[in-house]
């Protein structure tokens, strides 16, 4: 198993931390992982993306151009990465952050209205965990307990009281993910 993922959106949406939690979940299950961020002078509000690779084998290149899965959190990222998904791959996007909907007919497409759902949670910062929940519903990569362990490892201890609300957000994402178009 090798899963090559791009997560892309604005800085501040939790793009990098979503990737880190995915990686730590993989580490908890003994997988090889790599997390390669786009880094630059931009901070909150600029574009941010991270390439995450999870594999049973040693990971060769941490830098890749095509992906099994794209998790898309804004329109610029949709424009940039929709075409980079491998045929048969997976596209998950936040329905509230997109103006132009995806057009590919050779991939599986799902939407999670995470921005809207996050406003109903205790904190809107759960946005990325709602997206992650949606993704984990479609790709059953890990046991939920590995993800919770991954969360604990990723978050500094002073934020550990927020783990229950994050777990709740993951469950919410699993519930609200909607199929847009599938090929099989």
């Amino acid at each position: 198993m090798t899963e090559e993922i791009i997560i892309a959106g604005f800085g501040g949406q939790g793009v990098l931390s979503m990737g880190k939690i995915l990686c730590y979940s993989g580490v908890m299950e003994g997988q090889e992982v790599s997390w390669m961020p786009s880094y630059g002078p931009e901070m909150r509000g600029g574009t941010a993306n991270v390439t995450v690779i999870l594999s049973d084998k040693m990971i060769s290149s941490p830098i890749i151009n095509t992906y099994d899965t794209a998790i898309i959190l804004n329109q610029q990222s949709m424009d940039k990465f929709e075409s980079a998904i491998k045929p048969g791959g997976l596209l998950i996007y936040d329905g509230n952050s997109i103006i132009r909907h995806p057009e590919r007919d050779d991939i599986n497409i799902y939407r999670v209205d995470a921005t809207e759902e996050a406003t109903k949670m205790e904190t809107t910062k759960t946005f990325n965990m709602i997206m992650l929940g949606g993704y984990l519903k479609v790709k059953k990569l890990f046991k939920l307990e590995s993800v919770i362990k991954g969360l604990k490892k990723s978050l500094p201890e002073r934020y550990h009281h927020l783990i229950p609300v994050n777990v709740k957000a993951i469950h919410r994402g699993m519930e609200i993910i909607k199929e847009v178009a599938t090929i099989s």
Partner: protein
Amino acid sequence: MEEYVLMKGNEAIAEAAIRAGTDGYFGYPITPQSEVLEYLTAARLHERTGMVVLQAESEVAAINMLYGGAGAGKKVLTTSSGPGISLMQEGISYMAGSELPCLIVNVVRGGPGLGTIQPAQSDYFQSTKGGGHGDYRLITLAPASVQEMADFVSLGFDLAFKYRNPVMILTDGALGQMMEKVKFKPQQPRSKKSPHWATTGKTPDRERIFITSLNLDPACQERFNIKLKAKYKEISEKEVRYEKIECDDADYLFVAYGTSSRICQKSIQLARNEGIKVGLFRPITLWPFPYKEIMEMTGQVKGMLSVEMSAGQMVEDVKLAVEAKVKVDHYGRMGGIVHSPEEIVKALKQKIIGG
């Protein structure tokens, strides 16, 4: 910490430095390596090893603080990126000329000049062919994973003290910024003993110790140069490190280090899916360079492509190694652009197989 943790390459260097029993870190922030200083300042070192961490006023000051610390026999470290490493060259030459050990990490970004903050491998010449003035050599280690970023810190210090010479870890922004899982060695205590050559204060029972790179008598200077030359010869004979990947049946060879060597491993999969048998030769020490081991591959392969994120630097050493027995060419993106696995396969076909 026996379990794996997820860390950036830069952070792994910092944690490995603490665990290696480093006495002092002196540096100045520069992207893409600032996490080293950030990590060390947040690590509550007064509760761990008492390692000194100091943000110097400039890279010139930092390297001279290394000179002072090393002169007292301490394990000292600095990290920077291209522009900062350029400022340090005088100090590196002085340390080589004074036979002082230290570890310098260059997390390379695109140049020349201030260039870009994105990854590059364009400081190969600077590290392996001098950089500073005079007849000296810098032992240069090229990690290709976050695990090696950590492991090469203690290896680097071992080599630096064994040969009393500066050691450079030459890495790049991609390896510095990416996270992988890494396992650390147990904490080593900081050394309480000083090497015999350290200037720790004269006692009545011994001669004074001088540490200097100044020698106004040419005859003395030449004797010193001969001694250095012999030391560098010994290092060249004993310390060459490399890795061969999928070379057993290879008709062609990528020669690549660091980030490029990782990308080439993906290119190998792509090329082999098309029936092209290509392998990877990865120099781990860039100086001493594995000339002999690359030469040995000429009996087997028809051509070699040196893949570097530069205009072509290591390719000159590959050409020296093979003595024109097989075709050698270079491929690489520059200016902070990282080549894709597909681009490398295309270059192999165009420049080596078809050329």
